[in-house]
């Protein structure tokens, strides 16, 4: 724990952390939305029925 603390203390402007993270999240979110929207229709229909198809 001390080892990590020591090096982290050297970082200036720690508040950049949340901003970077927000950016990472937005990027990921946009990618996921694009993937979901462009997903193959047949695949989506098949996946949807999975809980019902077997027993």
């Amino acid at each position, binding site marked *: 724990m001390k080892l990590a603390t020591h090096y*982290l*203390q050297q970082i200036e402007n720690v508040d950049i*952390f949340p901003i970077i*993270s927000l950016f990472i999240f937005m990027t990921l979110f946009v990618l*996921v939305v694009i*993937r979901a929207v462009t997903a193959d229709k047949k695949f989506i229909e098949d996946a949807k029925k*999975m*809980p019902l198809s*077997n027993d």
Partner: protein
Amino acid sequence: MEQQTFYYDNKIVKLFAYATILWGVVGLLVGLIAALQLAFPIFNFNLSYVTFGRIRPIHTNAIIFAFVGNAIFTGAYYSIQRLLKARMFNDFLSKFNFWGWQFIIVSAAVTFALGYTTGKEYAELEWPIDLMVALVWVAFGVNMIGTIIKRREQHIYVAIWFYLASFLAVAILHVVNSIEIPVHFMKSYIVYAGVQDAVVQWWYGHNAVAFFLTTPYLGLMYYFLPKAANRPVYSYRLSIVHFWALIFIYMWAGPHHLLYQALPDWAQSLGVTFSVMLIAPSWGGMVNGLMTLRGAWDKVRDSAILKFMVVAVTGYGMSTFEGPLLSLKNVNALSHFTDWTIAHVHIGGLAWNGFLAFGMLYWLIPKLFRTKLYSDKQANIHFWLGTLGILFYAVPLYWAAFTQTLMWKEFTAEGILAYPNFMETVTQLIPMYITRVLGGTLYFTGAILMVYNLIKTIQSGSIEENEEAHAPALAETSKLRLAGETIHRWLERKPVQFTIWIAIAVIVGGAVEIIPMMMIKSNVPTIESVKPYTPLELEGRDIYVREGCYTCHSQMVRPFRSETERYGEYSKVGEFVYDHPYQWGSRRMGPDLARSGVVTGKMYKTDSWHFNHMLDPRKMVKNSMMPAYPWLIKDDLSTDYTAKKISVMQTLGVPYPEGYAEKAVDDLKKQAETIAAGLKANGIDVSPSKEIIALIAYIQRLGVDITKQAGEVKAETEEVVIDFTPLTDAESVTAGEAVYVKNCVACHGAAGNIDGTGLVGPALFDTIYIHGNTPNDVFKVTSEGVPAKGMQAWKHLLPKKELDQVVSFVLNYKK
């Protein structure tokens, strides 16, 4: 393709279902006892094992980890096998998961009752049980991932993504929040101190709600709701988006539990922002659940199972809307430390977790036992009892929360607290607490009805423990991406890579929140005057943790005028650097104790007051709901581990001098003798070796380090000039009596009392006053107080008019 024959393991599902039912009943019953204790303190039975401070963690852990935990395993073990068309990976792991989990539950209940706790909410288990939890949890994960790898279905359905995310996140949370150094077999100190501990704890606490009570349940919803409604989920695309958004954002929102508390601003803002963003993915889940029933709402009328599920999903939507609302700083200023939080979690717990589990059991048990539900009518009655129970539970608690927070914050026209006596704000809540017991009883009765109904169902059918099934083997596909295959789809059929991506999403948020906290220098400014606890205070602190005092008392004065007026100087980050664990608390059933040791402060009480109060709280504070703690006075303090505790603290960086551990017990005894001698001078004969002495030492230490010396304050009050003539009109004297009864009785005895024995303050109705007999003398001592002895400066607590009246009442009383 060749058809393969395999067998679903139904026996493990059955076992988990039985455990869900059993622990559900137990957890609800313990909750009912806790509710009774708050309405009627007699239900604490003066018995250490069942006081509220120990019952409350038993209740919360029983509901979260025993009832909901077993419900998750029930649903997961049933749906994983069917969605992947494979038996569970390993039968031994399944059994180990089941029996290990039940063993943990029993150990938890026993150790909590015995007072073994780490004092961190929802993570109270001591280190040997923590290790066991980690082991069993990993067994579950390996079993699940193993099944995914040997599956006979190409695509991994969204329910399983949720189970995977839950497994990974809970594993990480549990490990990070349980890094502790053992003192002995059943005692350890957490490595984090003060504000760091608080951030780690609420990062854990918040995400325990997220990844134990929410994501696995969304998995259950995505499987059992389509099953019960017999139609596919509304939008699979929406489920993809809301899955990734939910698991990514949840991890960041933890600091919203610590708003306006001693936490750096950037962390608070981060918590608020991400909490508000959470509404979107949460409602994505709710919309997907409810819309699955579009065009089929007529089915809901006939099916108790769907009724349970609809209310569950609606409850999920309500509490995930309320959660972000409570995370706004202006709402949180009002809601925090009140019953609002309790009401909020019970909407989630009773509706979302409880009702979804009930709905699932009503669907699953007849299915497993190849029969029909014994009585649909009883299931419907259960539904209505449960729904009414939720309303009778939640509505009074919201009412209680608004009442209390407004009373705490109300000031009179003169600018002093309208309700300076904390007890007044609690007494108001008792009728609401009685109604809550009614709500809990209704809900509990419904659950009992379900047990009967399910037992009858089980008796009428028979289970096939290894159910035969057929499916073609999974075709070998290239490990590489196929032409035309999207990245997400490719990932989904690669379980290991998929798992790693989920882990990354979960870790990023946690890291962003916690790593900067470790940078003590910029985020935790140290305060020169804050010193480590003495050995006696440390032992007293461990008693405070053992008895679960933090379940009702906070140690965190927020920077509001209403709080600094009531409790004293607001809390600073640097005050808590030696607190392993932190004890800020989350609910004020009793007043804040952060400044209880400040002799000149508003919260100060003498040693003898504390002694009598622990023995019988209602003797000192009329209507108090606090349990009595007679065993603290009877039991000897064990000093067997004092030296070890000091050296563990040294390992954690608490600056005791080198070699202090050996001298610790001597110092402890010296301090204990001083306190016992002080009590003796006040007519209380108690051996210095008793536990109560340590607890008093700890309480009297709180807030002392950062407060200026008593002498400095005294100097200011010397010069006050008093010009007081007693009022004599009957109206004022009667009004004065009312003021006396409300504020003075606790320390000075009933009106007319002339015998000072057993009282905290001197009797006031004899003829001699310690600080002078003239009206001016009596008025001055009342108005300015005698800080050294614990008499408050009542000019800060009562309007001038009432002050005049009460002094007049005392002086006019026929002696």
